[in-house]
């Protein structure tokens, strides 16, 4: 579209194009807010959006009435009530919960989230609110006592979960780690015999035993003691302070303890 005698230099089409370019450059050059304040946004909107698990009882699952239920859902409700806002639950999986927080689709992650250095680079954590340990579980007749015994065996694990990251570090090179997209697939893989052992949380193994699954998983060895934390975006001092304050209050007045007894069938450990 070079200028010719019949098309003037600033023809209508070229003018529109230049105006569009100029407008986009202006928008791109607009000063960004120096620091996002999620707590103010939550209070203004009157809604707290929380990422919760839907495939990980007793922390989060779908009940018979198709509504989410679990420890994390109740903690989210407690947070929203004590902040004086409405609660909006956003079901997530282990693999998409951090991207959801980073893209601000949710304000908090309450999803049996464990703390580790990689996550600390992109998230901030609250104080711990529930106990949790990860281990390798398998059938009683399989002799596995430590990570080294995994040589030549297949272990199923949920991708992106703490047990995935930890097991990948300590498992021997000839152990086969199969990573599935969510907890349900990992459990299905174990129960259908596609993997010999499963690396998951103690509560999942307890649930399998309680439901009298055909392959009752027995604890082989501990991977990590990793209590649950609430996750939020970095550089949110107001939000972090508020969340920690609510948790401290809930621990003192027994609200968190009664949730622990309701869902984990045991009181909150003293060191939490």
């Amino acid at each position: 579209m070079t200028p010719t005698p019949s098309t003037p230099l600033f023809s209508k089409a070229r003018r529109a194009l230049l105006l569009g370019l100029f407008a986009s450059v202006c928008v791109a050059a607009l000063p960004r807010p120096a620091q996002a304040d999620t707590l103010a946004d939550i209070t203004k909107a009157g809604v707290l959006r929380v990422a919760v698990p839907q495939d990980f009882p007793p922390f989060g699952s779908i009940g018979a009435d198709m509504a989410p239920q679990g420890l994390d859902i109740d903690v989210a409700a407690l947070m929203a009530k004590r902040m004086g806002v409405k609660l909006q639950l956003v079901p997530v999986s282990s693999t998409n919960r951090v991207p959801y927080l980073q893209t601000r689709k949710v304000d908090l992650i309450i999803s049996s989230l464990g703390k580790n250095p990689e996550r600390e680079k992109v998230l901030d954590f609250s104080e711990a609110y529930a106990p949790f340990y990860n281990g390798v579980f398998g059938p009683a007749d399989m002799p596995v006592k430590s990570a080294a015994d995994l040589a030549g065996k297949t272990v199923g694990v949920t991708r992106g979960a703490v047990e995935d990251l930890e097991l990948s570090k300590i498992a021997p090179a000839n152990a086969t780690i199969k990573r599935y997209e969510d907890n349900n697939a990992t459990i299905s893989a174990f129960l259908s015999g596609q993997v010999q052992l499963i690396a998951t949380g103690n509560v999942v193994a307890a649930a399998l035993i309680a439901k009298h699954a055909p392959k009752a998983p027995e604890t082989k060895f501990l991977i990590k003691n990793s209590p649950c934390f609430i996750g939020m975006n970095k550089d949110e001092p107001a939000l972090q302070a508020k969340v920690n304050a609510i948790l401290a209050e809930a621990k003192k007045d027994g609200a968190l303890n009664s949730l622990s007894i309701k869902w984990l069938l045991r009181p909150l450990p003293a060191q939490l």
Partner: protein
Amino acid sequence: MAYQFDFLSVLDYTDVLLKGIAVTAQLTLTGGVLGVAVAIFGAWARTQGPAWLRAIVGAYVEMIRNTPFLIQLFFIFFGLPSLGVQLPEMVAASLAMVINLGAYSTEIIRAGLAATPRGQFEAGASLAMSPLQVFRHVVLRPALQKIWPALSSQIVIVMLGSAVCSQIAAQDLTYAANFIQGRNFRAFEVYLVSTVIYLLLALLLRQLLRGVGRQLFARRAR
């Protein structure tokens, strides 16, 4: 604070990506070749087979074309072990792709056969060829030539559909992308890179299939 792009963090996992590309290519090759073989048999069965075979193949085609690929895959991988059939994930993924491509391609090739003029069959019969010989030597190649673009498209669709096999931990390109994203949380960079790789693989596959078509159908009707 604007998002800081960091494409170099994806390069740390180049070996994982390369393995993913290799597995996707392997699944596509197995699925493509065996799937087309199944389809040729299926198309023959539906047009010239006995009534009972026609019914069975018809049921197979309708069932596969009207259910999601993911469900078929999960059934083969998680469901069959309850019946005693335990398949490792590469076998299960390849099988699911063969079954899936076979069903869709049966219909495509059948369309090509239906477009073959009756005269061809009669001409072959008049040369004392059995129906099977007529099918193999006279009718099949022109039929394939007619529907080659549609068949190529279906093969590319199944190659892109192989991404679903990551759900049963087959270590294809999507599995590699999910793995890398789970480690460095760089969703934008990781998925952009894997999208570009899939695009290049699809274009390469189309070129390959076009070349195969040229080789097979070089003889033009005068």
